């Protein structure tokens, strides 16, 4: 069953025409160019793309962590009916953590090595919720149990270095959940982990979305992880969303030539192909984007219009595609 994108009105998070710029010595670098998407409560939206596509910058913009001189040049970010992209930093700090939790790639840098994990949890909880020390400790223990840390009471006073990679990422997720946020931004949460541990963390995120109705923006380059947990997926290329739709459609019936190339280039454990589909060349530098569609120099279907007009994201079937000549259903590149 294709899942229709939530209408912007009942979306928990709505990002509308977001553009993020970074002024550099060699001119302005536009990392995100007019990105729009929405996530409903309890939904997992996958945001995929290769390095430099702008997926992490999009996530950072939503939690208000774009480092100056980078700035949101245009667009709106609306969380639960309230605009958050123009909040002063003190107000944004309250939103971050309280309403939006964040999980990043490297669990070790997200934890303070000098404080026990119990201390870090209690502090985070008390920063956001009006609880006594004892109540906060109680909540911290139940969070640790919830993210699957065995014997939380005995690990409460241990330090991050005493935890393995997978256990650390669980602690980071517990921290992100400290104030029961309604949205979690997970940026490559499993990339630093081994496959067997990866599966555990993905199962944990899926359970959170299901049981707590937490919305998750899952940013990753790993299509396998997206296939497993996301209900919808947005594919980014050179700062734009080129295709967004139901996960099954995007993976098995891609409409954008880039999506089709990306899917064909992924080797599979289940079957062996003689050659992988190959998209020649590499993504253009963001400071030197080609005119027209940014993908046209690598696109097997490019024609004259692609070199002059950048296609807008337009409805096609159940999803949306930004392409002048999208693929028909059932055709693979």
């Amino acid at each position, binding site marked *: 069953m294709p899942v229709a994108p939530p209408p912007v009105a009942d979306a928990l998070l709505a990002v509308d025409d977001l553009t993020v710029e970074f002024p550099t010595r060699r001119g302005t670098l536009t990392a995100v160019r007019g990105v729009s998407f929405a996530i409903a409560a309890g939904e997992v939206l996958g945001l995929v793309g*290769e*390095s430099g596509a702008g997926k992490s910058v999009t996530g950072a913009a939503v939690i208000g962590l774009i480092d100056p001189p980078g700035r949101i040049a245009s667009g709106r970010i609306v969380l639960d009916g309230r605009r958050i992209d123009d909040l002063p930093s003190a107000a944004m700090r309250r939103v971050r953590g309280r309403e939006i939790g964040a999980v990043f790639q490297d669990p070790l840098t997200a934890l303070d090595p000098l404080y026990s994990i119990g201390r870090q949890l209690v502090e985070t909880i008390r920063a956001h919720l009006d609880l006594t020390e004892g109540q906060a400790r109680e909540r911290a223990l139940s969070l640790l149990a919830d993210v699957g840390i065995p014997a939380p009471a005995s690990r409460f006073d241990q330090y991050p270095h005493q935890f*393995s990679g*997978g*256990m650390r990422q669980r602690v980071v997720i517990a921290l992100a959940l400290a104030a029961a946020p309604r949205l979690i931004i997970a940026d490559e949460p499993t990339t630093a982990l*081994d*496959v*067997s*541990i*990866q*599966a*555990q963390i*993905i*199962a944990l995120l*899926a359970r959170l979305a299901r049981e707590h109705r937490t919305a998750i923006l899952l940013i990753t*380059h*790993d*299509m*396998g*992880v997206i*296939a*497993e947990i996301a*209900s919808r997926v947005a594919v980014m290329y050179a700062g734009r969303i080129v295709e967004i739709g139901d*996960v*099954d459609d995007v*993976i*098995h019936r891609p409409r954008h030539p880039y999506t089709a*190339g*990306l*899917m*064909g*280039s*992924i*080797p*599979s*454990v*289940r079957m*062996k*192909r003689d*050659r*992988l*589909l*190959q*998209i*020649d060349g*590499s*993504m253009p530098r963001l400071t030197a984007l080609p005119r027209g569609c940014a993908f046209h120099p690598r696109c097997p279907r490019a024609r004259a219009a692609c070199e002059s007009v950048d296609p807008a994201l337009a409805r096609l079937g159940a999803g949306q595609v930004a392409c002048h000549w999208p693929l028909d259903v059932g055709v693979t590149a």
Partner: protein
Amino acid sequence: MTHLVEAADIACHFDVSPPWLDRVVGGASRGVLKAVDGVDLALVRGETYGLVGESGCGKSTLARLIVGLYAPTRGTIRYEGTIVSAPGRGRRNRRARRGMQMIFQDPYASLNPHWRVADIVAEPIRALAPRTRRRALQGRVEEVLLQVGLSAGDAARFPHQFSGGQRQRISIARALSAAPQFLVCDEPTSALDVSVQAQVLNLMRDLQRRLELTYLFISHNLAVVRHIADRVGVMYLGRIVESAPTAMLFDAPRHPYTRMLLDAVPDLDRTGTARTAVAGEVPDALAPPPGCAFHPRCPYANARCREEAPRLRAYGAASVACHAVEEQRVACFA
């Protein structure tokens, strides 16, 4: 059948003991990390042997042992029948090992940023055949650059002028310049984006066919190994627990750890299905469990598994180190 590369009971132990004073005063005990502990490996000319395992299983140490970057604690490595590595004489036999080269994971760290591509690519020739004339050297550099899909003009540029995928092509050109027969590739595509990974994997396959190369291909990515390898070995805590032809290993895995790994891989064809989450984690390599190292995570473990370490036994074309498989306590798919 003669093997191009043969490792016999190879082991590499690292002494990670605390300082002497801490041991005497503080009562700390000696620690030995058995990164690789008794691996037998034989590669046939022209094949690709894939080596998979999770981080810390010893696969990169094994790669470094084979090319001679580490000296083994025990065992020998032969190349074309000649011993090239044995305890205490790891770096000798330079002549014998000139047929092997290595490709590293990180194309940013493995190329000297101050050198031009021409010098980087010519380095193995300079080291192995220092009297090569400049003109011949230049010609050879241009030839290998063209082979890996770069242009002759790229020789004059510096590494920072290239993208990650192009840099990995430079690494491959460097490895090929002295015309080796055997390449050890340690996670050569792990730092690359999938579309670039596809380019590099296709290139490696084309080069193998054209130049009759033999690859030892190390990766944590099972899909990549399935794609490129003819045979696959699965490592766990310093040992190979299963080794089999690729199709057999992926379609009918025998060792419980191999099955667990395969179940844990996310797959595009199974949207919305949860993987079998694997219980537990890789144990501390400094204090491996007694008996079979996998027994604390294994659903089939019994008393024998907790005491006696299993040895590799042949089952047709596959070999598996598992008591449960031997005693037929595990149902096999095949």
